[in-house]
């Protein structure tokens, strides 16, 4: 719904700025979809009279106009106060009062200058609404009423500057479909009084014009009121009314129709006006017309005000005269009974309809209107007569109509008063903070909920307060202590305590809802996940998890090659035995024990790991770092009749550790590693920056004898992985995965085979190739290494795939060849490789 601030201010004092108001609306629960600022126009945009308009020869639409600007000071005007302007609008005619933008005026998207058009000077422009930024209408230039003074500023006429809010009203809040409703809600939020338009009782000239009224469908039309007027002067609406409608997105038509629309926008309740003289009687002899509220007859046809003819099926509600449908109830009136410039006597309808019926009809006919939009959201019946009175006042004031009869009112079952109890204690329970009785009453009074007294809580709508109110409510326990309110009839959405509590929460502000501490974040979730993932990795790589005591035998560390004095042992005061006399500093000795145990029990293929803490004495106390260690010996996998099992070797163990670090997206480097129990040449340590993440390597065969493992019998290597779990946890905290756009261009795969000197490392070759064009070289995959007597002494053969791809374009063969030549040249120069 479009709401102009200038109009809204009629009902509420609003000194707030536009952005403050936007926030207020949003936090009152009314979503602001768009804010359109209508800027003030330059003072040089004025009302002016077109004195003459002559066609410009040899053009089909241009007219040369002399435009009277009155006393407005302007250098180029003649002695007759006229300015010469060329205008192309078809509705430009002499005698009209138009809007003239004089040279120098800057409008929304153009600056007006004196210009020559077809050799004729034009000193300004006659403007349309769109050119002034008031509406989207570009149907022609603006024609102002004749009583507008020449020279008047357009800002004054159009109430500029102004702001138009486009508000999204939730379907439950039919009461917000008019300016008054919005103002009431805002007023409640701001605790300001609503200024309602005053209604005057009109004097009635009884019995001049009669109307028959028959409601045959009280279910679908709970109330129908009609008033009849005589001597109505159909004319254009006054400018203020037109401007109000235009800003709210409606087109002015004539004063009576505009008044019904104006009252609809004001109150949210649609009205309709019929031409009294076009309505037929049921009985041809009768002297007055009839209005019959009934269902359509099957195949009944009606030409509607939108110019289309609708064929009704029979279950649509229509407002008929004595003979035929003259309106599809609540949706649209008929062409024949509409108000025309000739209309003198009119019938004003103010009614309430069953929302479901309107929705169904509107859906079925694919016809929706401002009226059906409102009725299908459920409007209350009890104020229909007041809405009619409001429109009557305006019809008398602006169209000179005389009220000619009583209020015809078919209202068989008036809505009963309904009361609702709410408990302040319940508000506290549901929302989380408390509200005083006075605060609650102030908010609800602004929303037109009338406070009736205190009492014992009763659930749901009550039709009577008898026996509910109590004299001394303070004795009631807080869970029963309640306020009773009369629910305003227009709040069809309020039927339970929770509905009102929601209103209170909304108006007092969701920002006041305190945040209760529900959960303390104590857990280190990242560490928990990474530790579990390391274990998962090892299990998926084929290992079984072991658990060993936290104690160990210090002599076993000696067996691993350590100087016992160099180790940060923590001694137990009361160990159970000398081989459990210290807290373990390494997981390795017990893993070797586990290996030996299983080898002794005839298991040849052993892959074990343990993830647990070790214990280090420090200068100030001690530390308990988490470690993961694994031990491997034998075959990589179980034997299978189809594929021969392979031995666990350097490459397999390296793959385990390297790809685990890779799976954590941890950038790492490796170098050789010195451990007293590892064969140095067959060990590597992995680092992230300077932090050691893990090592792997082959256990020195000679120390295994200490565990009773005889490699001369076993004839298989024993491999170790050790990981510094805390370091991996720490280093992965900052890792995140960022999606890389996939190139739309195909990748090219080229193979490269060459002989390389034995001392040249694959890693160096790889880095060299990648460095040649990092944007193009996506990946290098070595797929073969070959050593044999056929190959020159001191060389090996390497074969690799080089995968090239450009993010921007398809790679040409030339570009690829060029790059491959460069690769060969670089490698040849740098490493003395020989291409094959």
């Amino acid at each position, binding site marked *: 719904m479009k709401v102009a601030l200038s109009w809204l201010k009629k009902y509420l004092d609003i000194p707030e700025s536009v952005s403050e108001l936007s926030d207020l609306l949003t936090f009152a629960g009314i979503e602001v979809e768009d804010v359109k600022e209508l800027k003030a126009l330059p003072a040089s945009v004025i009302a002016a009279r077109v004195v003459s308009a002559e066609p410009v020869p040899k053009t089909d639409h241009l007219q040369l106009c002399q435009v009277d600007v009155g006393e407005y000071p302007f250098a180029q005007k003649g002695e007759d106060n006229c300015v010469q302007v060329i205008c192309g609008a078809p509705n430009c005619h002499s005698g009209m009062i138009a809007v003239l933008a004089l040279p120098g005026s800057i409008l929304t998207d153009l600056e007006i200058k004196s210009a020559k058009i077809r050799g004729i000077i034009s000193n300004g422009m006659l403007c349309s609404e769109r050119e002034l930024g008031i509406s989207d209408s570009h149907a022609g230039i603006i024609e102002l009423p004749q009583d507008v003074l020449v020279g008047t500023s357009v800002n004054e006429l159009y109430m500029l500057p102004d702001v138009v809010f486009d508000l999204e009203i939730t379907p439950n809040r039919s009461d917000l479909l008019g300016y008054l409703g919005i103002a009431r809600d805002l007023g409640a939020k701001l605790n300001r009084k609503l200024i309602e338009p005053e209604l005057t009782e009109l004097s009635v000239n009884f019995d001049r014009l009669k109307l028959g009224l028959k409601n045959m469908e009280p279910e679908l039309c709970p109330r129908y009121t009609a008033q009849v007027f005589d001597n109505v002067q159909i004319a254009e609406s006054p400018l203020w009314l037109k401007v109000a409608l235009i800003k709210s997105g409606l087109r002015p038509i004539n004063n009576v129709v505009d008044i019904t629309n104006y009252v609809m926008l004001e109150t949210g309740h649609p009205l309709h006006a019929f031409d009294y003289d076009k309505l037929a009687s049921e009985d041809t002899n009768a002297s007055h017309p009839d209005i019959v509220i009934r269902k359509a007859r099957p195949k009944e046809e009606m030409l509607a005000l939108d110019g289309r003819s609708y064929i009704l099926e029979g279950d649509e509600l229509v407002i008929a005269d004595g003979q035929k449908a003259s309106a599809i109830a609540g949706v649209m009136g008929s062409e024949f009974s509409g108000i025309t410039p000739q209309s003198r006597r009119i019938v004003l309808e103010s009614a309430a309809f069953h929302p479901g019926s309107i929705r169904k009809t509107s859906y079925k006919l694919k016809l929706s209107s401002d009226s059906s939009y409102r009725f299908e959201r459920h409007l209350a019946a009890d104020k229909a007569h007041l809405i009619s009175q409001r429109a009557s006042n305006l019809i008398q004031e602006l169209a000179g109509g005389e009220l000619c009869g009583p209020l015809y009112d078919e209202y068989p079952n008036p809505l009963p008063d309904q009361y609702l109890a709410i408990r302040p204690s319940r508000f506290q329970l549901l929302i989380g903070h408390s509200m005083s009785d006075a605060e609650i009453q102030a908010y609800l009074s602004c929303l037109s909920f009338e406070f009736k007294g205190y009492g014992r809580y009763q659930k749901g709508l009550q039709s009577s307060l008898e026996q509910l109110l109590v004299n001394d409510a303070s004795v009631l326990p807080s869970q029963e202590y309640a306020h009773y309110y009369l629910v305003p009839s227009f709040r069809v959405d309020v039927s339970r305590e929770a509905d009102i509590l929601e209103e209170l929460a909304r108006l007092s502000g969701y920002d006041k809802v305190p945040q209760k*501490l*529900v*959960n*303390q*974040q*104590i*857990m*280190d979730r990242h560490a*928990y996940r990474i530790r*579990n993932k390391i*274990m998962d990795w*090892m*299990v*998926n*790589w*084929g*290992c*079984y*998890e*072991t*658990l*060993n*005591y*936290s*104690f160990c035998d210090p002599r076993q560390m000696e067996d691993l090659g350590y100087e016992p004095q160099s180790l940060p042992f*923590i*001694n*137990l*005061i*009361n*160990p*159970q035995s000398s081989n*459990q006399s210290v*807290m373990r500093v390494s997981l390795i000795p017990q893993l070797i024990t*586990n290996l030996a*145990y*299983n080898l002794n*029990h005839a*298991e040849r293929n*052993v*892959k*074990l790991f343990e993830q*647990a*803490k070790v*214990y280090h004495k420090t200068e100030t*106390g*001690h530390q*308990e770092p988490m470690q993961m260690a694994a031990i491997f010996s034998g075959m*990589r*996998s*179980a034997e*299978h*009749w*189809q*594929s021969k099992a392979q031995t666990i070797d350097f490459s397999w163990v390296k793959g385990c550790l390297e790809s685990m670090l890779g799976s954590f997206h941890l950038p790492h480097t490796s170098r050789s590693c010195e451990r007293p129990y590892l064969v140095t040449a067959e060990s590597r340590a992995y680092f992230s920056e300077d932090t050691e993440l893990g090592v792997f390597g082959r256990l020195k065969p000679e120390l295994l004898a200490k565990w009773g493992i005889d490699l001369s019998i076993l004839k298989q290597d024993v491999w170790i992985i050790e990981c510094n779990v805390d370091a991996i946890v720490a280093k992965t905290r900052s890792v995140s995965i960022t999606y890389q756009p996939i190139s739309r261009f195909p990748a090219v795969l080229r193979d490269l085979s060459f002989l390389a000197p034995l001392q040249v490392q694959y890693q160096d070759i790889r880095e060299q190739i990648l460095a040649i064009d990092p944007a193009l070289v996506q990946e290098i995959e070595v797929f073969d290494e070959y050593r044999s007597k056929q190959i020159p002494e001191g060389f090996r053969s390497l074969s690799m795939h080089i995968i090239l791809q450009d993010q921007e374009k398809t790679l040409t063969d030339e570009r690829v060849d060029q790059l491959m030549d460069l690769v060969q040249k670089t490698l040849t120069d740098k490493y003395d490789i020989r291409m094959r």
Partner: protein
Amino acid sequence: MQNQLATMLEEAGREIEACATANDILNTKAKYLGKKSLLNGLYGRMKDLEPSERPAFGNLLNEARQQLETLLNAKSSAIKAQSWKKENTDMDFSMPGMPSSRGGYHPLSIVRRQIDEVFISLGFEIAEGLDIEDEFHNFDALNTPADHPSRNLADTFYVEGGRLLRTQTSTVQIRVMESYQPPIRIISPGRCYRNDKPDPSHSPVFHQVEALVVDKGISMSDLTDTLQNFASIMFGARVRSRIRPHFFPFTEPSAEMDISCVACSGAGCRVCKGSGWLEMGGAGMVDPNVFDILGIDSEIYTGFAFGLGIERIAMLKYNIPDMRILFENDLRMLNQFRGEL
């Protein structure tokens, strides 16, 4: 002419069926649909017919053409599919498939992770602490009297520097309460130590998980519901739980938690020694003294705590008769749990 057409279709159907290669298909197609085909010839003879008969006959020819094309396409697809691989009919389907090379978790890890899952789903946080602790966090803060026998060297391991190896993970609860104000909902799993000689039901190193909840309005009924939740998720929906009076220095009232026997469902058997119930661990409402020591207002907050032995749960769940089996790390034990979790 219609007879001719029918004979041709019949003949073509047989020939298409007999096709064995892509080439056969091409030849057959040329023969029946090509320029010199009978069908094409019949199209040419349409002009000899009465104009009124032409549309009907034209339709007939079109139908025949479509029919032939459909047959040829179907046969062609079948030949293409077969050219990749013929059905393997002399395979022994009972030969073992490729085995998984995956390993497995230790049963204590399996149980520990299941317990984590249960409590995380109940909104608990996991808190961890040090194995080597001081007397304050292991005893004093838990309201243990200075002369309590559990502090003896015969019961508790001490290390140099006056510290000890924690005898329960309640130490973690104390540390959490020192650092955080309520609401607190944690479990603290971890290793514990008691100076017991290894035997079927004891181990100097064992694993515990303790739970602690501190908030406004926590009562013993929160404890019983948490316990029941735990029991039915870990051991099955039919398992019942109960608490019965007991004494612990840091809870008041204190209780021992039981679950109905998982072996006999409560009827009484060897596992439950005829009682129908299995002891799960100690529990109770946090003693106000403990709150006072830690600076938590015991007038505002209440809480419950309980402790469970992970070894005991694993032994019950998997019918493991001797706790020492869990620390031997025998692959013949470990590989019984592959695929679990």
